[in-house]
């Protein structure tokens, strides 16, 4: 057991996997000598060499397209997209090629790879360095998506993703890199893709969140607790496939659901969770399943008052929870 930053947990998981499996190749912009713009791949270039830690040209479609070819021909690629905001030029390669190769070839080909994607706001990144992208990719059959919220999960889910036989999008929240520390089990610690986990038990309302919002939701639950409202906080952590069972069991206990994500609300991933709860947990519900998402503007604005306005926090989450409880 060691106390680590979220950033270091990702780095260590990646380093351990590369040492374990010589097929693994890391590729992306600035992942080599610089060790990534956030330092996640720091030292890998020196440890594993240029062939396995590849500074690609500045082209995201290239990063994913060549990763598919590498995967088909015996390597295990771990491409990095520098910022989630810049994954869009690779949308076609991910949707049309990576996600569909196994299905369209009727299992003759597969395409294991782990696409690491730093995402999220609250970092003064403005419209183009703050984006959340899970809603777009959650709708693509053939992909898996994880969004770890703790250092332990950051390492354990990365290992699970790398060892998964299918393509996985690994969403790492930029604001958690250095702001969150936690115990990380030593050794070969794997957290399976799929299961959600109850981070805080409660009987009055269930709050569903992931990434940065997990921590804001836990803080909100503490505030609510001081008011005598016991909120249960569920860390969704795997977005696709979704752990409907754990989510519904929680709603069955609390009879109230609040779904929280920092991404834009309209047609966001929260809609899937809310719709699933409404449809399959209907009889459990004493109040409307409620979504709290980012405002529906085209991105997180830069200037501090605007960014603060956009980003959800414990206060906004607690306020929304009170309304649901008061229904």
């Amino acid at each position, binding site marked *: 057991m060691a106390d680590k930053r979220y950033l270091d947990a990702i780095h260590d998981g990646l380093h351990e996997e590369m040492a374990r499996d010589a097929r693994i190749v890391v590729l992306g912009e600035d992942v080599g000598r610089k060790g990534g713009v956030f330092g996640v791949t720091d030292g890998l270039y020196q440890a594993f060499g240029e062939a396995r830690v590849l500074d690609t040209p500045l082209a995201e479609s290239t990063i994913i397209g060549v990763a598919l070819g590498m995967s088909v021909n015996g390597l295990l690629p771990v491409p990095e997209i520098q910022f989630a905001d810049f994954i869009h030029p690779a949308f076609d390669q991910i949707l049309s090629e990576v996600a569909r190769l196994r299905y369209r070839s009727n299992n003759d080909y597969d395409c294991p790879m782990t696409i690491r994607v730093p995402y999220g706001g609250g970092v003064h990144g403005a419209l183009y360095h703050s984006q959340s992208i899970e809603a777009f990719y959650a709708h693509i059959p053939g992909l898996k998506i994880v969004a770890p919220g703790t250092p332990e999960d950051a390492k354990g889910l990365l290992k699970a993703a790398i060892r998964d036989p299918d393509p996985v999008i690994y969403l790492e929240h930029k604001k958690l890199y250095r702001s969150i520390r936690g115990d990380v089990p030593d050794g070969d610690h794997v957290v399976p893709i799929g299961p959600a986990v109850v981070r805080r038990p409660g009987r009055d309302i269930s709050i569903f969140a992931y990434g940065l919002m997990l921590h804001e939701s836990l803080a909100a639950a503490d505030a609510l607790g001081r008011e005598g409202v016991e909120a249960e906080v569920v860390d969704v952590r795997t977005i696709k496939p979704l752990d409907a*069972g754990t989510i519904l069991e929680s709603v069955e206990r609390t009879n109230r659901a609040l779904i929280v994500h920092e991404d834009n609300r309209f047609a966001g991933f929260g809609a899937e969770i809310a719709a699933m709860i409404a449809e399959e947990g209907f009889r459990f519900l004493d109040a409307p399943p409620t979504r709290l998402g980012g405002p529906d503007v085209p991105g997180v604005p830069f200037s501090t008052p605007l960014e603060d306005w956009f980003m959800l926090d414990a206060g906004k989450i607690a306020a929304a929870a009170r309304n649901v409880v008061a229904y």
Partner: protein
Amino acid sequence: MSVPDTRAKPREDVTPQSLGLSEADVLDMYYYLRLARAVDDRMWALQRSGKAAFVISGQGHEGAQVGTVYALNREKDWLVPFYRSVAAVLTKGMPAAEIFLIQLGKAPDPSSGGRQMPGHYGHRHYKILSTSSPVTTQCLHAAGIAYAAKVRHTGEIALTELGDGSTSEGDFAEALNFSAIHRLGVLFVVENNGYAISVPLSKQMAVPNVAARAAGFGMAGVTVDGSHVLHAYAAAREAAARARRGEGPTLLEVLVPRLTAHSSDDQQEKYRSADEIARDRARDPVHVFTEELRGWGILTDVREKEILSRIQHEIDLGTEMAEEAALPDPATATRHVYAEPPDPRFRA
């Protein structure tokens, strides 16, 4: 504005002897050429008779495909095809019967089990990558395959095919650039038939030959007349040798006629003159190679008959087998989205 004119020059010099090819070799190429045409004709017959929903044809492209793929180590190297690659996949080893299984969307189709449209070839056993519909994406896949071959020291090279119009997608430039930077063993074979559906080359690019693009990426660029099987073979053999020497990729442009409409859904008379269509007929690689082989005294009536009857037999058997094969069972339609078994507890 200086554009290196790399238009194909007539090359009287290219003969089986000059290339060190045996009669058996060139007759083998001829067999694949005629086989591809016969398979293609049958695809159209199946469509006209209502048995196949759709045809996308390789007619006119076969000579270039046979010549370039024949230059590979066909067991060891990779083919990353596109929808016109009938001759290419046959030359790479795919049996004719598999093409009819795709054409009819039957369950035993090894390319996709009836999941993909006709023309979407793939089969790992023959090292033919599965084809999708979005054009040009495959160029980056070929580059990635070649990168893996390089770092794994397998000695494999990758040949990928695309059309002239498809060179306009950003992925084409990206694939050339990545391959050139890492000096990868990739042959980018652009089958230039002068059209992207209805869009003529003049609206697709401002250069007479797309091979001119190679220099700006730091790689070799060559244009040959794809109606001559041996010209395509010679250029591909040089490119493959360069690749194996670690001298990097080649952009090989083969000039070919499109002898049919774009597909069974297209009427090319709307945008091509009768004259032009007629002129293209003279460039038919089947006609050209037949004449050449006769001129070299390699092809005789007897041999041609043998080859054609052998092909007829394969086509008939393949069609029969494909027609008798079962359609896919809808109960299988949810399989292979992910590796099996999926965990029933989770939703996607």
